[in-house]
């Protein structure tokens, strides 16, 4: 008996250690949260006037909101062990669909619903390709990424119709707010709260972690893996479409470049925020903090007037550092447990 007890006590002591900083670091997404705090403090102290300028705050909100909304869907997919590269194309395509309906004179609410349904449908296609046809998500979602980016370009380039000058209510939806916070940012906050509650408390939310942790075992335990993953792709598509519609409203025009790099930014943010391409880990707040950190970093480059091309280099290093630290910590724990 003693031989079972000894290692456990050692580990459990560590697990319950009073070192609250170490404990904090073990909570998923805390690294991204700390990085946000550091960036915030840095910007607030070094360039307070520029940083707290109302225009800068507005720009930050416009940067965070759409990508944050997309990141929620991406994090859900990552937790269940897959991902979606087509989100940027969905943004552009769903935005264009809504814009076309608006120009055709349909009621605003109908136009928005059509746009959202287009996103859900693309998510459903992605889900079918991955779960039913068994195509690797990298390949299948690159496929849909190209198809719908291409379709957007085909419908927009060289056409005589301009998809802009939408009804005022629709444009205000993207440009106006409440209590000094844009509608799109309110939407982000509500979605983060709703999906956090869903993931943390609902059985289906838990099942995402089971599937991501051990796909085959989850199947043996009677969890409906295919249904849940297809559902996750549909949510991702829905949220990407919503982000695309919001940006279309804000721009008062359909734009074929919307979401050009969103898929990469969002995956990077999710990984910094505690997600993993191996699946089974991550949290919605983590995804949000990842996006906020990315936006702060971008903001810092703007405010300091740095060469913007440097931004990607720095971001690449940050990503590698976060992933390496995580890998190193896992390796050390495995060694302590005598597994490797």
């Amino acid at each position, binding site marked *: 008996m003693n031989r*079972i007890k000894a290692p456990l006590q050692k580990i459990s002591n560590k697990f319950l250690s009073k070192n609250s900083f170490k404990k904090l670091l073990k909570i998923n997404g805390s690294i991204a949260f700390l990085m946000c705090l550091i960036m915030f403090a840095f910007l607030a102290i070094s360039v307070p006037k520029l940083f707290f300028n109302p225009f800068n705050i507005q720009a930050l909100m416009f940067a965070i909101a759409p990508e944050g909304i997309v990141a929620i869907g991406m994090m859900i997919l990552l937790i269940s062990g897959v991902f979606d590269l087509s989100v940027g194309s969905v943004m552009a395509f769903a935005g264009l669909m809504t814009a076309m309906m608006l120009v055709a004179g349909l009621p605003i609410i109908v136009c928005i619903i059509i746009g959202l349904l287009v996103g859900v449908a693309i998510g459903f296609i992605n889900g079918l390709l991955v779960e039913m046809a068994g195509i690797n998500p990298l390949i299948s979602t690159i496929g849909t990424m190209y198809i719908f980016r291409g379709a957007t370009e085909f419908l927009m380039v060289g056409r005589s119709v301009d998809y802009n000058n939408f009804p005022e209510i629709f444009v205000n939806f993207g440009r106006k707010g409440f209590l000094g916070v844009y509608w799109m940012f309110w939407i982000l906050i509500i979605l983060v709260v709703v999906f956090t509650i869903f993931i943390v408390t609902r059985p289906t939310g838990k099942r995402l972690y089971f599937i991501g942790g051990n796909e085959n075992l989850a199947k043996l335990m009677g969890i409906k893996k295919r249904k849940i993953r297809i559902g996750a792709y549909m949510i991702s598509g829905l949220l990407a479409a919503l982000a695309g519609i919001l940006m279309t409203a804000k721009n008062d025009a359909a734009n074929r470049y919307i979401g050009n790099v969103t898929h990469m930014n969002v995956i990077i943010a999710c990984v910094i925020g505690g997600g993993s391409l191996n699946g089974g880990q991550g949290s919605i707040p983590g995804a949000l903090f990842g996006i906020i950190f990315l936006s702060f970093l971008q903001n810092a480059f703007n405010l300091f007037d740095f060469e913007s091309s440097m931004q990607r280099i720095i971001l690449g290093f940050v990503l590698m550092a976060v992933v390496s630290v995580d890998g190193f910590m896992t390796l050390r724990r495995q060694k302590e447990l005598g597994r490797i």
Partner: protein
Amino acid sequence: MDKSNDNFLIIDNISKNYGVVQALKNVSFTVKKGEVYTLLGENGAGKSTLVKIIKGEETPTKGDITLDGETIKNYSPMVSKAMGIAMVHQELAIFENMTVAENIFPACDYLTKTGAVDKKRLRKEAQDRIDMFGMDLIPSQKMDTLTVAQQQMTEILRAISAGSKCVLLDEPTSGLNKDETENLMKIIDRLRAEGITIIYISHRIAEVMHISDRITVLRDGEYVCTFVNDEKLKEIDLISRMVGRELTKSLYSRKAYTDTISDEVFFEVKNMNKKNAVYDIDFQLRKGEVLGFFGLEGSGTDSVSRMIFGLEAMESGEVFFKGEKIDKVTTTTMVDKKIMYINNNRKTAGLLLNSSTLNNMSMPVLKEYSRGAVINNKRLTEHTEKYVDAFSVVIPSVYQKPRNLSGGNQQKVLLSICLGKEPELLITNEPTRGIDVGAKAEIHKFLLEAVEKGVGLIVFSSELPELMSLCDRILVMKNKHIVGEISKEEISEEFIMTIAAGGI
């Protein structure tokens, strides 16, 4: 009591084929309600296949399963789950990213009024199970902070928490130490007291005799006999039934070469250790000798074979080849020194199944057949054809992909790849697993021809007849240590199995 209701499970004439290999041949037996029923046999006797069939994870080629008086059609893991059958797999089946409590109750069946997962209740229920069986686990602990033994305990708890009527335990003790094993025995006793039927798989005889009500011996996929475990049952009865097979005539038997073995040490391993894998491994291979390694599942033979070739890192130990110390044991240095390794799994780690046989053959000899950066395809084709002929691989052309070949022919291609490098030492891990008798004999013949040409040979195998026909000397491993050495003259199946499976 009505006799027919007394039976929980009836296995009726079950057979299972994997391609040409017959894993189970007309196996029939009956398990009573509430007993601990053990399936005993060597590696490859068909135990694991059988429990997978009982759980519904594999479909039998023919035969019927009757559960609780009902003959089951369209059997699947879901059906068996609904019938109250749970299984603890030989390989760990856990969610490493989740907590202990979540692993015990993956169905999330405790909900609050609002439909949320009731975490408090989940932890309390988990704590109750943990206390019931006196285990040292914390419900809120993450699985990846646990030791392997603790993870396995969690898996066992999950199996018995699902309201199961029957628990299948497939080699649950292979990763456990003595104390942990004793603890598991107590748990099984408790389950029996609660009327749960246990189907237990093991090859550790002492353990089996300690815990079982009845013991069925399987050998080479066939039912041998069933013993009632009472005072009269002796260890040797079981051992003789586990191994008692006739040496098949078709196996190519090695003549005594003892006089040609010199005293010169060809390959030597000194004091090799790795925590939780192997301890104090010391052995010598003399020139002209064939050395065998035998051990049952979990004994550590697989790790030894991998570590001496550098596929797994050792923590301490030295390796000498032809009197010279090898500083860094990595696969690259070993291949450079003309030491080759034949893997035990040609499908996942032995062959490029989707590349041509020519490409497969060229893997280790690319350098020899190229000038600068240019590959001489003509000479490479000749080289391949030479070996394909020499090993009588049945193949339409060297461009054929190994995927379309039979297991025996794949294994011959694998052997050709290794011998194509003209190795001086060949380490083979299960060189003939899963191939038919004819191909087996051929491969044995090729291996021994290589030995006659002066190639050193170390054979790791779980098949006793194979070792007995090939080797001059067999080292037996148990519990990650070398526990016995048997020379050609004293080799007998009973003797080896007594060392490998007897005692604790």
